[in-house]
Each structure stands twice: as structure tokens, then as C-alpha cells.
């Protein structure tokens, strides 16, 4: 998943809760998803991704 996609999905979830379009039963699952999305984004911003490091260090 890309960062942009994660943010878009997060925005979607937040808007639905804000607009009261979500059943209380759904909120649990959505919150779980939102938490994962936030963690994903945070990791991208603040944690070293060895995979990227490896790709960049490799030559053509």
C-alpha cells in the first residue's frame, strides 16, 4: 500500500464517523482499521524501512 492510499482510506473512515453514517457495530472494525492505517503512516514517516534502503543501495 502507498502512503497516499492509506491517508485517503483514513480520511474516508473519519468522514463517515463524523457524518454519523456508521453503525455502532461497524465503528469497532473501522477503528481497528484506522489504527492500523495510522501506524502504517507513522512507520513510513519515522521508521527506517530496510527494504527501501536495500533497493536504493543496489546498483542498476
Amino acid at each position, binding site marked *: 500500500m502507498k502512503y497516499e492510499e492509506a491517508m485517503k482510506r483514513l480520511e474516508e*473512515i473519519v468522514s463517515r464517523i463524523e457524518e454519523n453514517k456508521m453503525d455502532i457495530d461497524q465503528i469497532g472494525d473501522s477503528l481497528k482499521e484506522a489504527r492500523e492505517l495510522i501506524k502504517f503512516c507513522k512507520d513510513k514517516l519515522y521508521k527506517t524501512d530496510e527494504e527501501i534502503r536495500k533497493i536504493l543501495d543496489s546498483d542498476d
Partner: protein
Amino acid sequence: MEPLTLLELNGRVKSTLQFEMPDAYWVQAEISGINPSGQGHCYIELVQKDPTGRTFLAKAKANIWRTTWMRLRPFFEQQTGESLKVGMKVLLQVTVSFHEVYGYSLTVQDIDPTYTLGDMARRRREILQQLEKDGVIGLNKELDIPVLPHRIAVISSATAAGYGDFCDQLNKNVYGFRFYTKLFPALMQGDDVESSVISAMDAVARRRDDFDVLVIIRGGGAVSELSCFDSYSLAFNIANFPLPVITGIGHERDDTVADVVAHTKVKTPTAAAEFLINRMFDTASALETLTHRMSDAVVERMNAEKLRIERVTQKLPSLFAVAKVRREQVLENLWNRTVTGVNNIITSQIHKIELMEKGISSADPVLILKRGYTITRVNGRVVKGAMGLNKGDRLTTSFPDGTIESEII
């Protein structure tokens, strides 16, 4: 023959020169030094370089006396939009003189600004016009800088201070953002800049999916060496580059052609790093705002649910009074936790996002169930209020570990 005194010898040189070269001559030269005097004169150093630009073929001092300078200077500046400066090519009308003490020098009588315009500014303008005509001049600016510009291809000279400054600035950013840089070395001064930078760009382009942006940087150099960035083919490559290009070529003067076509132009390598850090900061702020909104929305929703549960429990018979009190306590407890969580989020400056996550955790209905909340259903539908409930309705109440049935009496 009697030896001459030095004065006699210099006197002969002087009169020979006067006799042989009495006229004023138009001469093309490059300014290598300029020094306006306090008296209003202007002393300049003129050079002619070999085609590589590295070796001097000729050199002379020239004086522009006050009255001439007062006339020529505004004229030249008005015509070219620039003042005389080092590195500029000029066409001057000079007389030649020799002084017994001060030696050989030129005295400037006139200047032809069209020559300078033709050599530098016109060349740049023509390149830009050509880029415009070819429809490429704004292409790179049309690209969006990704929200997460953390994989950075750098074109620079590996040994130059500029590259080190750039990496230092990125890596010591106070927010703790992670950046990944890869250097594609190129010559950043001399005659081979153009071909060297273009071939480095080709190498980056072959791996375009591995990177978010391209940064072209160098430390400050001699002003005259900037002209290598006034190149059509270099600018054409930048304009057409598949990634946004940020230039930090390190200069104060007018933009080079490369700067004009780049997505973003900054003055120094350090400023290029700052630009990327700021972009990441915007991205992190957007995430923070979203997390905040999430937290607020859930709290609001919980508030509404709390009111609903209260309304339902008020209708429950005294038989359930104990359960009601217990539920209210659980709810109160949960509510306080949520409020505390949210307060922490707002007050914390550094670990905002972590705290927000906690806030959200305590608002998670799955956890709410585990802490003593229940979900009440009638005929499989969630009951959200007392309204519409009737005597005799069978309530199904879900606990985390099972359900019970009850009837409204």
C-alpha cells in the same frame, strides 16, 4: 653604447607606443576583476581565456575615469539590465598607454552593451525561448511533489561540501523523519558539467520507480562557472524529467536556465533539504489532524451512545437497578478515560500521535464491551433508545462472553 637609465628605457617604450598605437581600439575581453574606487573611478581587470576557460591567454588592467564611468555605467545598466561584473564579456573602446612608473594600461572610452547582451543574457533568453517553443518549459513544474518525498536521488559531486551539508541537514531533522538518499555522482564545475549531469540524470530515470524526487546540488562556486547551467540540453532534460527536480546550485545571481525549468529552485543544498523536511512536516501534520478528527468523532459518538443507554436503563425495572448502577459506573469510568486520553493528545507536543492512539484505544467498542458495556438487540436489531420499545419485547443483551435474554415487564 651608454647604458640607459630605467626612466629613459620606459620613456622610449612610452613614446614608441604613442607613436605606433595612437588610436582608440575596440577590444573584446572578459572581466576578471572590478574595483570601483572611492574617487569615482573604476578599475577593472580584463582577461582572455583559452577555449577551455582554464588558461589565461592575455591579461590587462583598464581604467575607467570618473567622468567616463558616470556616463557609461547608467547607460550600460539601462541597456543590459545588469551591472558590470566578474565573468562578463564586454566590448570596450580603449586607448593604450604606458606610464614610466605604473606600466602598461588601457583607458576605457566607451562600451558596447549589445555585445554583453549578445554573449550572456541573450543566450539565456534564447534557450528559454526555445524551451518555451518546444513546449517543455513548464513540464516539470506540472508534476506534484509526492506527499512522502523521502526517497531522494541526488546529483552532486561526491566530494563537494554541498552534498555533505544536504545529507547532514536531512538526517538531523528535529522531527525524526526518515530519508533515504542515493548519490549519482557528477561533475559540478568545469566544461563537462552538462554531459556529466545529463548522464547521471539518465541513470536516475532508469530507476524512476525507486525515487520520489531528484535533487541537483552543488556548493557555492565561482560566479562565472554558473554558465554551464545555462544549457539547452540540460534544461530540456530537467523539464522532461519524470520526477520533480529540485535545484540548489548555490548562487545569488539571477536564476540559471536549469533553475527556471526545475520544479523548485532553492539557493543552497541546505535549503533543498529544508524544503523536503517542510514537505514531510506538512504530511505529518495532515496525519495528526486526521487522527485528531478521528478521536473527536468517536468521543462525540460515544457521548450520544451514552445518552441512549441512559435512556434505556431508566426504563428498566428496579430488578435491574444493580445492573444499571454497575453499567453507569463502567460508563463513567470509560468516559473519564476517554476524556483523559483526548486531553493528553491535545496537551502533548511531541508524542501527539501515540497519545491519540491511546485515546482511540479507550474508545474502541470492542474494548468497551470487555469493560462492561453491552449491546442490546430486539429481534436482531440494535436498540439505540427506549423509544419504540414495548412491554413484552424480548431483549437480547450481548456480553463479551455470551448473551442473555430478558423481557420488558
